Structure formats: structure tokens, C-alpha cells
């Protein structure tokens, strides 16, 4: 036991007392996250504010004065220009395409006369609008001004029939504020369940990858592994000490990344326009996630260590580990686009099962038994790999290239 502890402390010390490694593993990712989210948040805020402050340029042709008045009342900051020459419309449409004009509303000639003299069987006059959905300003102008057309339509209708109630027949949710029956936390969990399993999986594996290849293949490359192998200690104790340290360090990196991500949730909420959804994790969910993540760290570290054992140096280790990393990424992506219920056997699939379990914890769609199965399978899988590593440590051909 003392041997495992000594190896464990040595591995921990090697990382935690090395400023470069601490910076690269713990500080740099947080700085990157803050920087990336900060820039994204700032850019998004600037973009939204810019669109909001933009003075929309709206062109109307053949519009009655009342409509123009309603338009101007709707948004005082916008500039509504009347067009009297129909031939100008072609030029204006080109301006909308080019992003120089935002919105065009075209009334047919003699619109008011046609409306006022309407009889059954007459053709209903058509108001045409033009906007450019690929231009933010234009789309925003359409959102702001198109309801005015509907208001004007109702205004004219009311003038024609006296009161609108007679022609409305029924209304839909006109005073029902409870139409949306969503469980905000579950809806938020669904969103988190789409993103988090993928991100946590790849971050955990990335942490294990850089640490594991250095701890095993790096030791072989530096010639320090052979120094350990001539000590009167069990090979298995060397392996356990290393795996425990790698697990701790990988979990620490995952915690650091996780903290960075949690801190960025407000920014993410703004960016994804998910107002109303509760992007948070309950205490029970957090505990279940923690237990699951620990078992995942064990498996990831064991996989990385096992592949590193067979490599002569860190470069070769990266080549061996990369396919496993791809499997982790694919497993994470598969959980993102899954809507049907998860079958029990899926939890038994290494790498994929835990990612799916993580998603289902967040969406509250996993039973305790299913979670227990996933964790037990993970632990058995990790233990099997650890056993293989221990046996491989006895192999002189692998360990000493003999």
C-alpha cells in the first residue's frame, strides 16, 4: 500500500509542481474558455444592440395615409419613405438584396377604392412585402413592421363590419397565460443533456490523454520507467499508483473545465435564446453525475494507459490513442441526436453507455438500477484493462523494447 502511495504522490507532484504543466492543464483551458465565451458574449451583445439601434429604412408604395401614420407610430426610430413612382420599386428591391434598404411594402393601385367598394365575388386586393432574410437589419425590420399590416387589416375590417367580434367566431389563447405547460428544469435538462455528455466526455478523455501518455509512454521515452522496474516492488503497485494519480488529475482537469462551463451558462443562455428554460442541475443530478464521471475517468485513464504502454514514446502513444478519442467523440455525438428511449443493453456498451447515462441523468430519464448497471459495467471494464496493463508491465518486449 505504501508503494502505491509513494508512486501516487510522485505522479501528482510531477504535474502539480510543474508550473508549465499546471498552466497548460488547469489555467490555460479556463483562460481560453473565458476568452472564447467573453468574445462570443461581447460579439453577440454588440450584434443584438446594433440591430436594435439600427434605423430601419422602410419604403411604402401606394399606402394610404392612415397606414403610413400607423407605421411611423410603431417605431419612431425608423425612416418610412413614400414611393410615388412604381418604376422605382425595381431599384428598391435591388437595394434590399444589397442590404441598403430593409423593407418594402407595396399596395396595389387604387387600394382604398377597391377595399371600400368591395362586393361579394370581387377580387381581394393584395399587399406585397419584400425583405431579405439573409440581412439582419432587413429581417428585424420585417419583424417590427409586418404586424402593422395585420393591425391595419383589422382596422379596415372593423370599419367595414362595425365590430370584429361578429366575424372572429372564436379566439385562441387570448387571455390564457398558462398555455405553455413545460417543466422548465426538464426542458433545460434536455438542452444540457444534448450538450454536456458530449463536452464532458471529450474533455475528460483529452485530460486523460495528455497526462496518461506522459506518465507511461513519456516515462519509457525518458528511460525512467526502467529505473522503476528494477525496484523491489510489485509491477501492479506501480500501475495502481499511476492509474490513481491519473484519475485524480483527470478528474481535477474535468472539474476545472466543468467550473468554467457552469460559469459560462448565463452567456450560453443568452446566446441560445432559451429564456424560460432553467439551465441548472439539481443536487441529486450533480451527485449522480459525479459518481458516473468518476467511473468514466477510471475507464478513460485505463484505456489511455493501456495504449501508452504499447508505445515506445509519446508520439507513438498519441497515434495509438487517437482512434479511441474518435470513438469517445462519436459516442458523445450519438447521444446528442437520440430521441427514443434507451434500451438497457445500451448502458453495457463501453464508452457509449456512460455518455448515454449522463444524458439521461440530465433529462431525468434513467432509473437507479440502470445507472448502477452502467457504473458497475464501467468499473469492471476499467478493472479488466488495469489487469491487462499489469500483465503488460511484466512483458520485457513491451516495456524495454527487448
Amino acid at each position, binding site marked *: 500500500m505504501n508503494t502505491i502511495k509513494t508512486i501516487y504522490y510522485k505522479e501528482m*507532484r*510531477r504535474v502539480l509542481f*510543474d508550473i508549465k504543466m499546471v498552466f497548460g492543464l488547469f489555467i490555460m483551458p479556463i483562460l481560453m474558455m473565458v476568452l472564447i465565451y467573453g468574445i462570443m458574449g461581447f460579439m453577440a451583445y454588440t450584434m443584438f444592440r446594433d440591430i436594435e439601434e439600427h434605423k430601419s429604412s422602410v419604403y411604402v408604395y401606394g399606402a394610404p395615409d392612415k397606414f403610413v401614420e400607423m407605421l411611423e407610430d410603431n417605431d419612431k426610430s425608423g425612416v418610412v419613405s413614400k414611393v410615388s413612382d412604381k418604376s422605382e420599386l425595381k431599384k428598391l428591391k435591388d437595394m434590399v438584396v444589397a442590404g441598403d434598404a430593409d423593407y418594402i411594402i407595396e399596395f396595389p393601385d387604387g387600394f382604398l377604392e377597391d377595399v371600400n367598394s368591395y362586393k361579394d365575388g370581387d377580387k381581394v386586393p393584395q399587399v406585397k412585402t419584400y425583405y431579405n432574410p439573409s440581412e439582419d437589419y432587413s429581417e428585424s425590420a420585417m419583424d417590427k413592421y409586418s404586424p402593422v399590416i395585420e393591425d391595419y387589416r383589422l382596422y379596415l375590417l372593423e370599419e367595414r363590419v362595425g365590430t370584429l367580434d361578429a366575424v372572429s367566431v372564436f379566439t385562441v389563447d387570448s387571455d390564457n397565460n398558462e398555455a405553455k405547460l413545460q417543466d422548465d428544469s426538464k426542458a433545460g435538462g434536455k438542452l444540457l443533456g444534448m450538450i454536456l455528455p458530449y463536452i464532458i466526455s471529450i474533455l475528460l478523455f483529452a485530460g486523460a490523454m495528455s497526462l496518461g501518455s506522459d506518465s507511461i509512454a513519456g516515462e519509457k521515452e525518458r*528511460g525512467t520507467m526502467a529505473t522503476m522496474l*528494477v525496484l*523491489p516492488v510489485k509491477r501492479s503497485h506501480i500501475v495502481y499508483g499511476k492509474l490513481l494519480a491519473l484519475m485524480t488529475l483527470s478528474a481535477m482537469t474535468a472539474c476545472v473545465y466543468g467550473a468554467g462551463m457552469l460559469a459560462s451558462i448565463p452567456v450560453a443562455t443568452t446566446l441560445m435564446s432559451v429564456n424560460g428554460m432553467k439551465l441548472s442541475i439539481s443536487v441529486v443530478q450533480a451527485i449522480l453525475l459525479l459518481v458516473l464521471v468518476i467511473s468514466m475517468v477510471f475507464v478513460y485513464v485505463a484505456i489511455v494507459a493501456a495504449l501508452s504502454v504499447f508505445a515506445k514514446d509519446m508520439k507513438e502513444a498519441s497515434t495509438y490513442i487517437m482512434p479511441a478519442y474518435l470513438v469517445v467523440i462519436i459516442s458523445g455525438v450519438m447521444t446528442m441526436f437520440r430521441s427514443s428511449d434507451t434500451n438497457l443493453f445500451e448502458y453495457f456498451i463501453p464508452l457509449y453507455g456512460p455518455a448515454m447515462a449522463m444524458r439521461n441523468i440530465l433529462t431525468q430519464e434513467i432509473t437507479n438500477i440502470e445507472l448502477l448497471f452502467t457504473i458497475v459495467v464501467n468499473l469492471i471494464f476499467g478493472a479488466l484493462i488495469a489487469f491487462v496493463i499489469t500483465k503488460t508491465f511484466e512483458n520485457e518486449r513491451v516495456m524495454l523494447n527487448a
Partner: protein
Amino acid sequence: MVEVKGLTKIYKLSNRQKKEMNIKDSKKIAVDNVSFTANEGEIFGLLGPNGAGKTTTLRVISTLLKPTRGEVLVEGHDTVKEAELARADICFLTNELKLDPKFTPRYLFRMFGRLHGLSDEIIDARQEELFSIFGIVDFQDKKIEELSTGMKQKASIAVSLVHDPKVVIFDEPTNGLDIITARAVTDYLFELKRKGKVVIVSTHIMSEAQKLCDRIGMIIGGRNVITGTLSEILESTNTTDLEDAFFAIYRTTITNEDELRELNDLDKQIKLHESGNDGEDV
């Protein structure tokens, strides 16, 4: 005592290794039926050219490699069946075994002491003794990566001796060292001998072996061609120094035509040089 009995080590070569070594055979006999005994209170030297099988023999003794045939006993412990017990009595120092560059000699000394199961008091006492002998105190808190080659070698020796082993195995102990550090190392080997340790060194420097070793085993082409004291070897080869003795044995041992031709060419060069001509006149 270290007993090597009929040790044979055969490496299986991968396709890449065969290509690198430019050979077709998938097996390479590194050590072929080598036997010798190294006793307490003596320095036993393993002599031979590069690639002769010296390091492989030492690696088997230190339990890093398993013999293909034969057996090795370290203080009575079989290096395969009781590898851990054998390792507890061994110190193995070779250029291939390095200290972690990120740690200081002091930290490594303590860590290796603990891995040998020593108490902190014993580690402290051993540290004081060995760091003083090898002059490590001045750089004991510097990282290994910041040390010179000589300092690294001194630190490696001290760390490898932390557990006061009964058997000390040094592979090319003075290789790459400056004259002062090399002298410190050889002096300490004599000190270990005086303390009754089994000391085994491998070298291809004949003068060093002649000065250091009580008994010598010559390995050529993986085979143990002669074992004995210096005087026994000189007598049996009818020579006056170890280098001449080595070449006398080497000439009768090698079978490879290229190596033989190379050796004859070397002889011609030496004779021409001794008669006043240099090689350019030939």
C-alpha cells in the same frame, strides 16, 4: 553472490527490427550459454566489444529480462521465480536507466528509499553519507534537468545505492564522465568491495578493467570465452596486458570474415606505423 548458470538470451525480432539490422533471421542470440560467479568482496568485470552481450547479461541479472535458457541466482534468489527478492539486493546502474528530469536528487533519493521500504531515519542517514561522498549536497535541490552529465551520474549512483544493496551492478560506470568524476566512481567501487559487496562492472575500456577488476569474464559474440583473474588470463594468452590478451582471444574467436579482415587491416596499419611509414604511403 551472483551465479550465472548457462545463461542464454534470444531476442525475437520484429519485421522493423530485422529491417533496421539488415538481417533475415527473426531470432538473435544475444547471450549464448554464459556462466560465471561473482563473489562477495570482489569486483567482477564483464569485458567485451560493443554488442557482445554484456548489457543483456547485466539486464538479466537485474531481473529486467528473463533468460531464454539457464538461470541466474542473486544472493540465492532466482531472478525469475523470486524477482522481487532478487531486486531488493541489487543496485543496477546503466546509462539506459535515467532519473526523472523534473525532480531534485534529494526528492528522488527519498522517494526511492521509500520504495525500497526504508524508514525516513535510515534514508536521512544514507543521504548524508552518499551525498557527502559524491559531493551532491551543493546541487541536491536542483532539478535533474538542470545538472551536468557528471552531476547526473553522481546523483544516479547515490540514488541507486540508497538501500545499501549487497550486489552492485554498474554498466559502463565511467562512460561519458570527466576524469575527476570517473575517479570518484572507481574509488567508490573499491570502497564497496572493501565493504564486502558483490560488484559487477561491464566495460570495454581494458585499462579500466585491468585496474579495477579482481576477476574478469570476457564475452565475445554472446559467448563467455574466458573467465579468470588478470594474471590467469595473461598467462593463458601469453600476453603482458589485458588489451593484447583481448585481441589474442578475439582473433581466435571471431568467425565473421569481415571482422577478421578489419582486424588484419588494423594490424597492418599498426606495423606500418611502427616501421616509420604512415597509412597514406600504402
